[in-house]
């Protein structure tokens, strides 16, 4: 059975989606990820979707669900590397994914999660000093 690998980096989990995400695979990923977060007491989840070229509303909702589940389990989720076409599709579908944090690439996402973990939540967040 095809699965999406989940890598552990310190207290973070890294998921790289390189194949087209079909419904079963997305649900399995959601399942695996929630188990791993609980098992490893992860503080952050990084989902790299730079290889993802096709999305539908179900995939969008699954991403939102993963972020919500992670938050319940006390981990922050960052979705990184979304392609322009994917972003346009999601917006046209009316899914702005308000609960999900995004970053341009894995580097920036990782930086954000590290800072979030150490409490100096200052990078790209909603509150900042002007």
């Amino acid at each position: 059975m095809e699965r999406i690998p989940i890598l552990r980096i310190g207290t973070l989990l890294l998921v790289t989606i390189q194949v087209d995400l079909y419904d079963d695979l997305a649900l399995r990923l959601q399942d695996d990820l929630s188990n791993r977060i609980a098992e490893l007491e992860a503080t952050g989840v990084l989902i790299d979707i730079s290889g993802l070229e096709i999305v539908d509303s179900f995939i969008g909702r699954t991403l939102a669900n993963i972020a919500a589940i992670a938050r319940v389990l006390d981990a922050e989720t960052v979705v990184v590397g979304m392609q322009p076409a994917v972003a346009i599709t999601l917006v046209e579908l009316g899914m702005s994914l308000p609960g999900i944090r995004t970053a341009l690439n894995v580097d920036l996402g990782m930086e954000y999660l590290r800072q979030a973990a150490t409490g100096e939540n200052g990078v790209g967040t909603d509150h900042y000093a002007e």
Partner: protein
Amino acid sequence: MVKLLKMMRENQERLLTDWLNGLKAIAQRRDLISDVEVREQARKILTLISNPPPDTVLEDFSSEGWQTVRDQLMAISISRVAHGSSPSETAQFLFSLKPPMFKLIREQLTTTPDELFREIDVTNNFIDAMALHIAESYIESRDKVIARQQEEMLELSTPVVTLWDGILALPVIGTLDSTRAQMVMESLLQAIVQTNSRFAILDITGVPTVDTLVAQHLLKTITAARLMGAECILSGIRPQIAQTIVHLGINLNDIVTRSKLADAFRLALDRSGRTVTQKPGNHTPVTAPAAGVS
């Protein structure tokens, strides 16, 4: 029928001279197109009509055999569009072939009135069909010119500029319709990926009006940029536009807005951990009033 074409072949030079004289009499804008060019075009048309492939009849202009004539008419219409002739002038070019043709038929076909009338009728319809075709080609080539210009304008009007390492700006100029909004969105997102920029400033100083549709397009662009991990700042909102936005009840609460591009740029610098300071002792020179001039 065959007789008519044979007649045309034999009298081609005369027809051409009569036709050109007729054209000269009605021409209003002699400066647009040279006599030599008109003569060449007329000669080609006459030659093509009087030497059609076998089994091609004058009654059916849409048949396969007249393809060469249609192509030639298309070429003429393209050159007319380029020269700036009007559609009626272009059609006149063919209509003025009628009098010489009728004259020729009347002179040479003296058999029966019936035959004379039939040949005139056929010639008349054929020239009408050609004129319709050239008018249509004229519009077609003009549409092509318009479409190309529109495309060029679209490309011109959506430049994405890099203000700083990681800070992009897109000054939107002109009204945002759906096509342009799509172009703006695509070029901005593409630039975000290419330059790896975390901040994008959408400046709408050049947008004359903002209605609900334009606002929706802007919101979509900003949301898409956020999904990719870049932050969008909306700037250049003029006071009247701010009023319109509020009166229309458009919700811009989730969007960072600034009134000037400079403010948006300062905010982006600030958020990326940079500050702009003035060097000590290096003040902007104050222009002193010129001495000695009263």
